[in-house]
C-alpha cells in the first residue's frame, strides 16, 4: 500500500515538475530588465571560505556596475548556488539556477572537479558558463574547438603555471637541470607532467624525480640525493604545510641558498620564510593574483574591498570581481543579453584586467599573465607578470 502511494506521489511529482519546467521556459528570460547572473561556489562545507570570498567579489563588482547605471540600463542581479565543493551538489545548484532562477549566465565553480561536472549541464542548456577560479587544464581542453561551446575560463591553468615557472627559470636564471620534489597527489603529479611537456622547449632536463606523501616529515635522504645530483633548482608543486619542513632540512644538508625551490607551495608567506629563511631565499613562485601586486586597478580593488568588508581580499575575491566585470563588458559590447551574441563578444574581447590584457584562445581559455614572485632578502619581490602560449593536445 505504502509503495503504491509513494509511487503515485512520485509520478505526480515528476509530472508537476515537468509541467512547471515547460510552462516556465515559455516565458522569455530576464523579462524584468535585469541581467540574471548565477554564481556557483562552495558556500558551505570545508571550502566555504572560498565561496564567501567569491560571492563578495562578484557582489562588489555588481554593485559597482549597477551604481554606474547598469549595463545599457540593465542591472545585474546575482543569484548564488551552493556547490558545497562537491560535483553532485554543484550540478544540482547549476540545474536550479538554470531551470528555476532562469539565469542567463553562470560564473563558477572554484574547485576543478565541480566545474568539470557543470560543463555538460551548461552545454545542454546553452547557458554561458564562465569559470573564474578552477585550474585543471582539462576544463578548457574540452572547451571551444575541443567540444563545449559554452564554457569559458578566465583563470590560468596548472599547465600555464608550470610553463611560466619553467620559462622564467630557464630564461631569467639560466637553469637547465632540475630535481623534482612534489606532493604525491593529482595536483603534484599533473604539474610535473606539464613541466615535462615543455622541457624540450627550454632544452632542460629532470635529473631526479621524487614525490612525497602528505604528512611526510623526513626529507633528508632525498635532499642529499638532490644535492649530489647536480640539479640547479628543485621543482616543487606541493602542500603549504610541508614547505617549512623541506626548508629546514635543506639547511641541514647544506643546499639552502644554493639550490632554490621553484613552483608553487606557498613559498612567499611570512610563516614559511620565517621557518627557513636561508632555504627559501631565491624561491620562485607563480600566482594568478595577489593583494600586493603593484597596479593601479589592483590597488584600488584591494582598498575598496577592505573598506567594504573589513577584511583583505584573497585570490578568489579578486578573480570573481574581475570576471563579473569582464562579463559585463562582453554584454555591453554585444549590446544585448542574447546569449549567442554575448558569447561571440566574449570570444573577441580585449579586456584590460588588473594584471594585463585578457583575450580568449580557440579553446575559450583566457590568455592570462601570471605574477612571478622571487624571495629576495627574506621578502617576496614581485618580478612582473608573464604569459606563455600553451600547446593543446592534438
Amino acid at each position: 500500500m505504502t509503495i503504491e502511494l509513494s509511487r503515485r506521489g512520485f509520478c505526480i511529482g515528476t509530472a508537476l515538475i515537468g509541467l512547471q519546467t515547460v510552462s516556465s521556459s515559455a516565458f522569455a528570460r530576464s523579462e524584468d530588465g535585469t541581467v540574471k547572473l548565477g554564481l556557483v561556489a562552495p558556500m558551505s562545507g570545508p571550502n566555504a571560505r572560498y565561496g564567501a570570498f567569491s560571492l563578495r567579489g562578484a557582489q562588489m563588482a555588481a554593485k559597482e556596475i549597477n551604481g554606474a547605471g547598469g549595463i545599457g540600463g540593465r542591472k545585474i542581479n546575482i543569484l548564488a548556488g551552493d556547490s558545497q565543493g562537491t560535483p553532485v551538489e554543484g550540478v544540482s545548484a547549476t540545474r536550479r539556477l538554470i531551470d528555476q532562477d532562469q539565469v542567463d549566465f553562470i560564473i563558477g565553480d572554484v574547485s576543478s572537479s565541480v566545474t568539470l561536472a557543470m560543463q555538460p549541464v551548461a552545454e545542454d542548456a546553452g547557458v554561458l558558463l564562465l569559470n573564474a577560479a578552477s585550474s585543471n587544464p582539462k576544463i578548457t581542453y574540452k572547451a571551444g574547438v575541443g567540444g563545449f561551446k559554452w564554457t569559458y575560463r578566465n583563470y590560468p591553468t596548472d599547465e600555464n603555471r608550470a610553463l611560466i615557472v619553467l620559462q622564467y627559470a630557464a630564461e631569467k636564471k639560466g637553469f637547465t637541470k632540475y630535481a623534482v620534489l612534489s606532493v604525491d597527489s593529482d595536483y603534484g603529479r599533473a604539474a610535473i607532467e606539464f613541466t615535462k611537456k615543455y622541457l624540450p622547449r627550454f632544452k632542460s632536463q629532470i635529473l631526479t624525480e621524487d614525490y612525497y606523501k602528505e604528512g611526510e616529515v623526513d626529507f633528508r635522504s632525498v635532499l642529499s640525493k638532490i644535492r649530489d645530483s647536480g640539479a640547479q633548482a628543485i621543482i616543487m608543486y606541493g602542500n603549504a604545510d610541508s614547505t617549512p619542513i623541506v626548508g629546514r632540512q635543506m639547511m641541514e644538508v647544506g643546499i639552502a641558498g644554493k639550490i632554490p625551490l621553484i613552483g608553487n607551495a606557498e613559498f612567499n608567506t611570512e610563516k614559511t620564510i620565517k621557518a627557513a629563511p636561508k632555504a627559501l631565499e631565491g624561491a620562485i613562485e607563480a600566482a594568478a593574483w595577489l593583494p600586493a601586486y603593484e597596479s593601479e586597478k589592483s590597488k584600488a580593488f584591494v582598498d575598496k574591498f577592505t573598506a567594504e568588508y573589513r577584511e583583505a581580499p584573497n585570490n578568489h575575491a579578486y578573480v570573481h570581481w574581475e570576471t563579473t566585470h569582464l562579463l559585463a563588458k562582453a554584454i555591453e559590447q554585444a549590446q544585448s543579453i542574447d546569449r549567442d551574441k554575448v558569447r561571440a563578444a566574449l570570444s573577441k574581447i580585449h579586456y584590460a584586467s588588473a594584471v594585463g590584457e585578457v583575450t580568449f584562445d580557440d579553446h575559450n581559455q583566457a590568455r592570462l599573465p601570471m605574477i612571478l614572485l622571487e624571495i629576495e632578502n627574506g621578502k617576496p619581490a614581485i618580478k612582473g607578470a608573464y604569459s606563455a602560449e600553451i600547446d593543446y593536445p592534438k
Partner: protein
Amino acid sequence: MFYTIIEQVVNGIVSGSVYAIVAVGMTMIFGVLRAINFAHGEYYMLGTFGAWFAIEYFDLPYPVAIVIGVVATAVIAVVVGNFVMQRIVGAPAEAGVLATLGVALILQNTVILVFGGSYKFFSGGYIEPVTLFGFTLAEQRILIIIVGLIVFVGLELMVTYSRMGKAMRAVSQNIECCAVVGIDVRNIALWTFILGAGLAALSGVLTAPVNVSVYGGMGELITFKTLPIIIMGGLGNVRGTFVAAMILGIAESLVATYVGLQFRDTVGFATLMLVLMWRPHGLFSAQARF
C-alpha cells in the same frame, strides 16, 4: 658513491632513533597488557603539543618545554591508564584494540577541537647544522641519537636489575603467577603504560624542531610506522625493538635514495609481511612468546 651510502646510513640511524624511542614504549605496553596500543602515536602528538603550548603561550625555553610536554602527557596517561588501560588486563584482545582506537580518536579530536586543525609552527630547539666526520646534521638530531642511546641503556638496566623491571617481565610472562606471589598486576600495568606514553611524548618533543609542523593528526603516521617495528623486534622485546627500528630507518633511507621517496613508506609494511610469513615471532627470538 661510498660516501653517499654512508651518509644515507647516518640519515637512517637518525630516523631509526626516533622510531626506537616511540616503539620501545609500545612494545613494553604490549608485553604487559597484551594489547597493541593504537593510541601510541597520540601520546607522541600530545608531548609535542605540550611543548608547543609552553613555548607559544608562555615563552618558555625549549629544555623546560621538553619537561612540560612529557609531564603533561604523563598526567593524561595516568587518567587514561586508570580508566581504560588497567581494565584491559586479562580482557580479550578485541577489547584492547577497540579501547585504544577509541582513546586515539578522543585524544586526537580533543586536541583539534581545542587548538584547531591547522598546522602549527614549532619554533623551539637547536636547528643549526654542525659538521661531524664530514656529515652535516642539525644539532637536534645529534641530541636525538644521544637521548635514544641513553633511553635504551636505561631501560635495559631497569628491566634487568630493578624491582619494577623484574615485575614487568614477570607480568609479561604469567599474570596468574604474579598475582600468587604478590605482584600488583594492575599497578605494574599502569606504570608501564605511563612510562611508554612518556617515552612517546619525549620522542615527539625531541623531533618537533626538525619536523617543524605540529598538528592534531600527526600521531597516526607514527602509530603505523611503529607497528611493523614492534612486530619485527618481537612483541615485548626491548633490545629487538631497538635493532628493528634501526634496520627500518636505514632501509627507508636507502629506498628513498635509490628507488624514490614515494616508495619509502612501503618498506615498513613489506618488511612486516615478510616477517609475518617467515618469522612471525620476530627477528630475534627463537620461538613465539605469546
